Structure formats: structure tokens, C-alpha cells
């Protein structure tokens, strides 16, 4: 039986959900989040009973997780690119690498391109 624990975040802004979840799962790999947007109420779930240190750590994550921004949202979407989008990007990368080879430059990997795009999204 899983253990549910209710929390009230000490913040009025919406946390970035993927980051929030990642940070909570860093505390407990079975952590899950229920949250109604626009409220400060959170219900966290994990496989085992909550201890006081765990509750304190989770409360800290809820209070300090980065705020949702369009940049973080875009980065999350990049992380979830469907195959069609990845195919488009990697086809362009292949053509670019042909040109880079003619210029004596090292080729770029898809991971490098994805990271570059992700970083760019974070600065816009």
C-alpha cells in the first residue's frame, strides 16, 4: 500500500512540474505528485511510509523548485520531441556535417545539436 502525504507549498508561483518531479524522485524513486494548478496544495505519494526527515526534504523541494517559465516549458518539449521532429533535425544535421567536412571541421552529433537547441531555448 502506497503512502500519501499532503503538503502546502510556501509559494504562490507554479513550480516547473518536470523539474519538481525529478527533484522529488531524487529523494525517493517512487515519488509521484498530485497538484491542482492555481493552488498551493500538493499530495505526494511514495511506496513507503513518510518519515519526518522525508517530509521536511519534500517540503523544501516544493518550496524551492524552479518556477514554471516558457523557457523551461520549451526545454521540456524539446526533451519530448517526437520522431518526426527528431528526423527533421537530424536530416539537417547530416547536410550540415557534409559541409563541415568540406571545410575541415569536425562533425556534430545529434546530442550536441539537441543540447544546443535546448540551451538556446533557455535564453530566449
Amino acid at each position, binding site marked *: *500500500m502506497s503512502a500519501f502525504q499532503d503538503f502546502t507549498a510556501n509559494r504562490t508561483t507554479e513550480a516547473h512540474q518536470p523539474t519538481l*518531479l525529478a527533484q522529488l524522485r531524487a529523494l525517493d524513486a517512487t515519488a509521484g505528485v498530485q497538484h491542482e494548478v492555481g493552488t498551493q496544495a500538493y499530495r505526494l505519494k511514495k511506496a513507503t511510509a513518510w518519515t519526518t526527515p522525508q517530509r521536511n526534504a519534500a517540503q523544501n523541494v516544493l518550496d524551492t523548485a524552479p518556477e514554471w517559465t516558457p523557457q523551461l516549458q520549451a526545454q521540456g518539449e524539446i526533451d519530448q520531441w517526437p520522431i518526426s521532429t527528431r528526423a527533421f533535425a537530424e536530416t539537417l544535421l547530416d547536410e550540415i556535417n557534409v559541409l563541415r567536412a568540406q571545410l575541415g571541421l569536425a562533425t556534430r552529433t545529434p546530442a550536441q545539436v539537441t543540447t544546443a537547441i535546448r540551451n538556446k531555448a533557455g535564453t530566449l
Partner: protein
Amino acid sequence: MSPNRKPYRRPQGVTLPPPRVGATGATGPAGPAGPAGPAGPAGPAPAGTGYVTVTGGVLNVPSAAIPQADITGLVAALAAKEATANKNAASGYAGLDASSKLTGSQQVYGTAANTAAQGNDSRLSDARTPTAHAASHKSGGGDAILLSEFGGDVPVASLSNGTYTIVDSTGTGALDNWNPTGLDGNSLITWHGAADAAVTGFAGGAVGLVRAVKHTGTTKVITFANNSGSSTAGNRLQNIATSAVMPLAPTGWAVWQHDGTDWKMTGHDQGEDITPAFNAAHFTTNGTMTWTVEAGDIGSISYCLKGKRLFFQFLIQTTSTAGTATNHLRIANGQFGGFTFAKQLVSGTLLHNDGGFANGFVQVVSGALTTLALAKFAGNWTTGIVNTLAVYWNGSLEVI
């Protein structure tokens, strides 16, 4: 003789001269009457009727009246005695002219107090509202009328069609042949039981009668079974939706009309949403993959039936999957009233979080019309998810 007086004694040896005689005294008083003499002879017979006779010294009065004419001056004497001012007057006395009179004191004709109505008095032919006397016509009354005496083309059982009653009920549990106190004719039953109730039929059906039920409580549910054998045939309900009992939640209402066979539902609105009891077994998949949903994962889930249209919504979060990946998560109809869907369909946009928020759809699959299938736009659901899979949907479907 005085006790002091000595008796007289004549002296012995003396000769007395002869006595002398005095004069004769006066005559004494008359002696007593002598004995009665013998009875005399009978007198002559009376000359006519009405006369008294004397027989043996007794006065005999004959039964026949003595003619007034034989009583000299009687009529005139009586006339002199008559108070004519009161004759035929109000509160006076009736005259002796032999005409028809009221019994007792004579009243004059008129319309005021202390007057009498004549035969042609308009009041005798006026339309008058009778004094209320319904009790005399009821069963057991002095002038009771049987319903069967009305006869005609109107069935006796339908005579109450014109009756409209509002009946309050708090009945709970099984309500077979439901007959709340006061039910009569066309009735609105306002229900607000302290526990759930399950109706299988109404008592007192007749052609044309209408039964309406309104949930006036704030909690609990009352359900109506379709064609249930728990009520007698003529009392059963033929509902709009037949694949499960039709519920009424607070503010809900439903109407039936009897067609001579049984009660036919003509309208239904469940009212407020009903939240089903949690049952983990109602959350499955179409394969060997398991979808684990716990009570605490249910943010909300509820349904509302309006006639044959079922509105259903759910918000389920922090669920898990395991086993071989498959493409359908399924929710059994136990979570939405037990109804069977009317047709296969693909409906609405499902929002899900299967490693990131994305859209999917809700599907009713042929051959599985008692479950709601949740699908991603493509591919299988991710297996091995621990407490992060979420699904959200709000839509409507037709049910049988």
C-alpha cells in the same frame, strides 16, 4: 245523679192525697225520616239523539255530539268570545273557515321573518348551492355511491386521474410496489431518505396516471430498476435506460406514465454527479500489463445520467504500470453506474502524463461495451511507470 244527693224515699204509713193532673205539654219535635219507598216506574224514552238520559238516577251522555242547533244561542255566544283581531293574523290563530292552513299558529305569506312561502314563491325554484354533504356519499356514509355506478367509458380505476397529490417519503432500502402514504392519482413523490433506496415499481397504476419523483435531499441516492420482477407486473417500470438501474442524486427527478400495462418513463435527469465507490478491480488494461490505481490516486471520478446520455469525468493521478506494454488502459462500467454503452465510438481528447503531458483519446471498443478504453494517439502505454502516470477526461456517451 249527683253523688251528694240521697235518693228520695216515701215515709212509711202516710196516706197521700191523689195526685193532681196538670195541663198537656207542647208537641215534641218531628221524628227521623222513614225508610225509602219502592222504585218508581221508568220514564219516557228520549225524543232524539244528543240528549242526556237518566237511568236509575245516573246521567247518561250519548256518544253522538249534541247538534249545535239544539243548543240555543251557542254559536252566537262563541262568536262573541272570538278575538277576531288575531284571526288569520301572524302569530294569531287559524280561522274556522275550513280552508288549508298551516299547522299551529297561522303565518301570513311573505319573504320576511315570521312569514310563510306560498307555492309560487320564487325561492322555491331558485338555484341553490347544497350544503356540503360529501361524507354521506362516501363509503360507509348514509348515501354512499359505488364507483362502479359511474360506469360509462371511464375505467373506474382511472377516476382518480384528476387527482394531484404531493407525497413526501423517506423510504430506504428495497421499495417494491412502492406506495408511500398518501399516494393518490397523479403524484409527485419528494424523496429524502437517510439511506439509499431501490425502487422496483409503483403501486396504484391506471391508464394515464403520472408518477414523478424528485430527490429533495442533500445526500444519498434513490435508484429505479427496469422491469424488475420484484414488483408485480402492472407496477413495474419501463425505463429509458435499461442496462442498469437509473439513479437520482440530489436535485434529480424522473417521470413515468402508466399505459395500462405498466409505468413508462417519460423523462429523467439524475441531478448532481454521483461518485462511485472505489474498486481497484475496475482499472485494468487490454493485455497482461497491469494498471495499478489506488483510492488515493483518484482526484475525482463521477458520472451523471440524463435519460440515455451518460456524462463521465475522471482525474486520476500517480498511478503505476507493470508487465508487457499494451495500448489500452480500461475503466469498467462499475465506475459509471454499470451501464452498457450503446455503440462503439472514439470520443474526446484524453489528457495524460506518461512521461510528459500529451493528448490521447477515449474509445468504446466493439465487443467490450462495458468498459471505457483510454489510448494514446499512437503506441503503447509505457510500462514500468511508478506513481507518475496520470489520465484526465470529461465526456459523454449514449448508454443502453
